[in-house]
């Protein structure tokens, strides 16, 4: 028989105009309270604003690049535009799907290796936000010990660690950063084990850390819990965790969060397509674009003028290029 995309997925019948943004999740999928959810938030915003039909599709475990490609192709064939792969794992898939469907705009989050006319690489300078988190931590610590908890020992998280460490050191050369990764692979639960996060944070707090920064997905909830229990500061990640329902109990211990606005990036790409000027090439979300940064929901944090000044200075230096933040 023909290929599945030739026969279409019931898509050919409907008019293409009614279909818009589609996203394909990375493992973790919807509900990860991290960038998958953020991407979904962007999708919802686009759906509401542009009034078109959207799609969001989950991956399967242990799938290959070919499967991811198939997913993207299938979405493109059905007329969705743009089609975004959430997560660097989609790199190969996006590249090949984009070659197959040159008229569709593709997006990929967290990867800058795909260079095609119809592909937008939505990447973020997480290290810049982490640098600011480091500044905030260094300014807030009384013990000169701060902690970093990484979910899984992979390059993406190394960026957070590198930025944070640099921020701390640049601000307070006497401060020491304790680093702890929870697991080697995601399968072992590094991003989804709050209990592990809690143990790790407790260990750091016992060694006098009084600010802990978690770049650990769902495990970060445990880090925040431990910080609250021991009355030290926690710094959240990805979204503004001060505002998260699940963490409402501990919000007074959440100093700030190093945000990465995947939602905005996704929405922007959708908007650019809608406006007829699709983004292409590397679209970097950084301090300058405002797609990464520190959340200011916690009043204690916001009202600490000295701290805010220091952050402001650091931010300007980064934007001006005076400070180059390391990525690993």
């Amino acid at each position: 028989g023909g290929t599945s995309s030739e026969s279409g997925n019931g898509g050919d019948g409907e008019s293409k105009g009614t279909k818009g943004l589609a996203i394909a999740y990375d493992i973790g999928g919807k509900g990860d309270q991290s960038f998958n959810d953020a991407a979904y938030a962007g999708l919802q915003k686009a759906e509401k604003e542009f009034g078109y039909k959207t799609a969001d599709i989950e991956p399967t475990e242990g799938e290959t690049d070919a499967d991811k490609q198939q997913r993207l192709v299938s979405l493109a064939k059905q007329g969705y535009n743009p089609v975004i792969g959430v997560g660097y794992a989609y790199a190969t898939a996006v590249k090949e799907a984009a070659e197959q469907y040159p008229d569709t705009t593709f997006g990929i989050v967290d990867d800058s290796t795909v260079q095609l006319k119809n592909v937008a690489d939505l990447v973020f300078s997480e290290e810049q936000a982490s640098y600011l988190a480091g500044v905030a931590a260094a300014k807030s610590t009384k013990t000169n010990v701060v902690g970093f908890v990484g979910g899984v020992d992979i390059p993406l998280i190394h960026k957070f660690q590198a930025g944070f460490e640099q921020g701390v050191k640049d601000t307070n050369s006497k401060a020491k950063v304790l680093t702890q990764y929870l697991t080697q692979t995601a399968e072992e639960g590094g991003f989804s084990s709050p209990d592990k996060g809690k143990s790790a944070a407790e260990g750091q707090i016992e060694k006098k850390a009084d600010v802990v920064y978690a770049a650990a997905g769902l495990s970060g909830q445990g880090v925040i819990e431990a910080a609250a229990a021991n009355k030290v500061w926690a710094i959240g990640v990805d979204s503004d965790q001060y505002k998260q329902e699940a963490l409402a109990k501990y919000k007074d211990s959440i100093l700030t969060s190093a945000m990465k606005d995947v939602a905005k990036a996704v929405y922007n790409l959708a908007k650019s397509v809608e406006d007829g000027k699709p983004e292409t090439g590397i679209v970097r979300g950084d301090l300058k674009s405002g797609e990464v940064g520190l959340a200011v929901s916690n009043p204690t944090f916001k009202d600490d003028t000295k701290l805010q000044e220091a952050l402001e200075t650091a931010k300007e230096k980064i934007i001006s290029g005076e400070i180059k933040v390391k990525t690993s």
Partner: protein
Amino acid sequence: MKKFDKERVLLAVAGPVLALAVAFVLTAIVLLASGKNPVEPFTIMFEQASFSDIQVRIVNQASLYYIAALAVAIGFRMNLFNIGVDGQYLLGAMMAAIVGAHMDLPAFLQVPLLMLTAICTGAFWAGIVGVLKVTRGVSEVVASIMLNAIATSIIGYLWLPNVFGVKVGNNNTTGEMAESGWVPGIDMGAAGEIYGLVLLAVALGVGYWVVINRTRFGFDLRASGASETAAAASGVDPKRMILTAMLISGGVAGLAGLPILLGDTHTYSLNFPTGIGFLGIGIALLGRNSPVGIAFASLLWAWLDKASPELDFHGYDKEIAVIMQGLIVLSVVVSYETVREWGLRRQQRRVGAELAAGNVLGADNNVKKEVAGR
């Protein structure tokens, strides 16, 4: 004897078919219970199987499953439970990727070299289990579970930038392999490419059959599985056999990742499919450790994998396919066992009946003796 054979074939086919039907019905009940249409998901998934690109991907995926399951089956054939295939194939693939990235021989040398690397790595990793079992009596199950976990760490270590790791974007890889090590696929036009090493899977299957059924070694292996004590008394050194079986199983396991590595990704990255070793266990058991059975089981499994994502587009949860995989394994093995027991009892009864009726093979030239004996 033709009668017995025909019956055996019938039994062999009737069991799984019946079981599949039961599994489908049970799945339909789950769908019904959750308020969904109990039939449409199946029609969608069957329809998927008719598309050539899906077919290509089913075959590709099945080749990985097939090799992993063969590795498991070799162990099972002699009552060894190699739950460590997962670690063995990951390490094997990674080592092959590393060698492939750092060596560049002509293809006719490079590809065998990569395969040899994978085989040796897998065999080495499984060999640890074998040695521990033979010399120290450590259960192969625990040892392999531990070694799977240790393999994860080793992989993490090899990925370090100052070891063999090459960072590409946010991905850890082992660097692009030299092109001489790429195995070209079989071009199926718009449907995509079938991995060249699907042929390796086929060859391994044939080799497995020949070795198991047609060689002295295979006989020893089967005998060890059927009765360790009888095999030992017949001259099989059980320790050596365990070690050999583990080494072979591990060697084959090492190859399980190669079709996709040499045929598609050309690097070992965070995207490399994991968990195939564990699925291999289920598939081997589903295929009753026979090369043909495993082939069907791998294809069935791959079909469920590749056809289910489509369900998402139609408002169904594709987890239903995972439920179905579980149900299929359960109902198939239950039916195997029931049919097997029934068949055994039936055969015994028949032997008894045929003997009573005087249909004895050696009867005619033994009339005299029989009279004398009684």
